[in-house]
């Protein structure tokens, strides 16, 4: 079967892949060759080819996280040739296609690196720190049932749109991975600003930002120095403006909340 571009020639590539047995083990780069890679393959399909090859030879396939393969679940998380999710802007690893590479290329593939994201194995990392940050306050405290009619609170379209844009974060962690400081500010700010913009989030806004920032620090993420790598690499384009909103919310909460700790 031919793809969209029947003239595209298959490629041979050299892969330098980070292999690491488990969290405690020391990892290192291992070099592999893959042959006859179609330009129409996705990056992960190219890794599937490598893994099937390794398995047939009796070697252990490379562990990596992935699931939906359509850019929305946030599972995939490869650091490709020195960039989070690879060279394409606004693209998750699973949506990166091999036509962006050329025959004979050497591709280096590493896991996200941050103290708060320990490596499980090979390219798979533990991002549960993100869950714990959300658990610290990334919600509106409403129990099921008893919610007022959806049209009870009109929300200006512009506000709803901005909240939506912040809410599109897929929690992949590319922001942390690409940040020199391994800061999680873009992730945290996306949730804080979504709920700060909406009236529903107003009731708990002070406690929310205080608790989420405290948890973020506890997890061992670095501090934001406004370098901007995170937003540049974010596959869904979460903007730096959110970090400013987070800073503002934090400052206002600390200055005016009744919380003495």
């Amino acid at each position, binding site marked *: *079967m031919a*793809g969209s571009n029947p003239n595209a020639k298959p490629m041979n590539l050299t892969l330098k892949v980070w292999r690491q047995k488990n969290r405690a083990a020391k990892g290192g780069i291992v070099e592999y060759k893959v042959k006859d890679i179609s330009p129409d393959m996705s990056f992960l*399909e190219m890794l599937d080819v490598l893994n*099937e090859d390794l398995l047939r030879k009796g070697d252990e396939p490379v562990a990596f996280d992935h*699931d939906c393969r359509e850019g929305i679940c946030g*599972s995939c998380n490869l650091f490709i040739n020195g960039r989070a999710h690879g060279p394409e802007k606004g693209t998750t690893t699973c949506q990166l*296609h091999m036509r962006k590479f050329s025959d004979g290329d050497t591709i280096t593939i590493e896991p996200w690196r941050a103290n708060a994201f320990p490596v499980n194995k090979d390219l798979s990392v533990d991002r549960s720190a993100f869950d714990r940050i959300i658990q610290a306050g990334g919600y509106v405290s*409403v129990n099921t049932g008893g919610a007022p009619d959806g049209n009870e609170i009109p929300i200006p379209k512009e506000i709803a749109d901005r909240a939506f844009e912040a809410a599109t974060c897929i929690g992949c962690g590319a922001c942390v991975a690409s940040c020199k400081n391994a800061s999680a500010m873009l992730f945290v700010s996306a949730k804080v600003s979504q709920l700060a913009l909406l009236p529903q989030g107003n009731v708990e806004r002070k406690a929310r930002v205080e608790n989420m920032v405290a948890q973020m620090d506890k997890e061992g993420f670095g501090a934001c120095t406004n370098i901007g790598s995170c937003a540049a690499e974010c596959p869904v384009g979460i903007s730096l403006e959110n970090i400013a909103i987070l800073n503002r919310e934090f400052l206002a909460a600390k200055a005016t909340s009744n919380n003495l700790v």
Partner: protein
Amino acid sequence: MILDSKIPEGPLAEKWEKHKFDVKLVNPANKRKYDIIVVGTGLAGASAAASLAELGYNVKAFTYHDSPRRAHSIAAQGGINAAKNYQNDGDSVFRLFYDTIKGGDYRAREANVYRLAQVSVNIIDQCVAQGVPFAREYGGLLANRSFGGAQVSRTFYARGQTGQQLLLGAYSALSRQVAYGKVKLYTRSEMLDLVVVDGKAQGIITRNLITGEIETHAAHAVVLATGGYGNVFYLSTNAKYCNVTAPWRAHKKGALFANPCFTQIHPTCIPVSGDYQSKLTLMSESLRNDGRVWVPATKETAERLRAGQIRVQDIPEEERDYFLERKYPAFGNLVPRDVASRNAKQMCDEGRGVGGSGLAVYLDFADAIKRNGADWVAQKYGNLFDMYAKITGENPYEQPMRIYPAVHYTMGGLWVDYNLQTTIPGLYATGECNFSDHGANRLGASALMQGLADGYFVIPYTIGDYLAKTAPKPVTTQHPAFQEAEAAVRTRIEKLMSINGTRTPDDFHKALGHIMWEYCGMARNAKGLEFAKAEIQKLRREFWSDLKITGLNEELNQTLEKAGRVADFLELGELMIDDAYDRNESCGGHFREEYATEEGEAQRNDDEYAYVAAWQYMGDNQPEVLHKEQLHFENVKLTQRSYK
């Protein structure tokens, strides 16, 4: 076995209210004495876990993902239906009920569907309160759009990411309960078996995917919210990890599996580009509002096109066959999913398909661009066009999209009664995991509705009825049934690891998918199904003698995970074939070539097949036994669907 659907007495519109009053309640102080296991943290699971914890139950929630937010509910694009009638266009609970029953080709239970339509309005309110940023009008009120199979605008949406926003809402509610300590969250934990004690579901066996540890968990009730099994076809729009293992294990422990052959094939997906293809990507149904579907009028033109002798632009208007518009002038390109899919297949079978493989038809926006301009099209469908360009490397503004049907959703699942309880007391199934509400074909924007309805508004009531009749004594994993189940899981893993053959799990999975797609896909016939059954049995034998897995159980081993899932798919596939073989009619997504009208449309047989086919597992390699739940239609009239 008599299948008691426990549908409450009384008029349709009063059943749920009456039932809510009739079910037994658990005293608030007693709720903390009950433990509930929820497997799966997608829309149905996260909403159930959060709501049950809010009520005071102790919940243990399990997901094989690293976070509940990764569940495949997140990928739903279009929207969620609700009978709000905000648009003043004549919508009502009854109309949503009616559309869903009709769309499902009259193979769903009236009472369940009516309840679904009733609670649909509460879902929207709940999600708005959680901070889900639905699309809004300039006046600040909620916006709606229309979707296939309905003549009203009742679909609420958040651009093309409605599933994501709803899931993140449910995930936030779940996270809140985790913070309160009412939900204990087990991530990267895969359920590998159900534990049944004295005929009641009382726990599960899981494998920690990072350490390989086998764990036992006990509870007073178990809720399965583990999604659909479309990946039995290998290629589908499902996420790669989607699997049938949890419900299949429950099935083997006694839960009946209903309508396994009811599969939804979505007409607008990006076609397969090569053998390496790992999954298929959906292009939203909304594209058919402005895109025109066509193939070359003759086989010869199609052949020259495929060979690269002519370009699509070279085909003059009169040599193009806009087959949906030609065959269904009333609905045109907006016929329901099953009809659109079947017609695309037919064109390709006639040799008029396009693309390198000939397995694609065009979805052309040239007219829309000419009429309203490229900017207008970009504003409406920009993100979808970008996604298409990213995947195919083609520019859909300049040449038509190539699309082909792909497996998308499975209407079948564990049989449940009105309380969403399976045939094993204490075991519940919600969301796509159960069979209940969509009959033989699901309407667009109804999956999200059902998942959340089950989780937020049905299970919190109905599970109490069961628990109230169960003593609030602590449950433990001390019972021998736990040890037995754990030992069986260990044995199975050891068996998988020790085969040491030559073929990979993906290899078998692809072979299975090929059989299923060819013989139990968009069109089925008795001969093909017979052949497929034998093929699958053969494949299963090969699997258990020639599988290759490397590495150990005691570590992150994605090959082992995959192998376990493929093993279960290999069993499910055969049941799907049995079910398709047994149902001698065509309805919804189930199209038997022998049962078609003269014009080639699906021919239902209401006299003999207006039932739910619920299958009982009888032991390894034994034929399953069919039980029938007769469907009674008291509020709608069964008619032949016509879209001409």
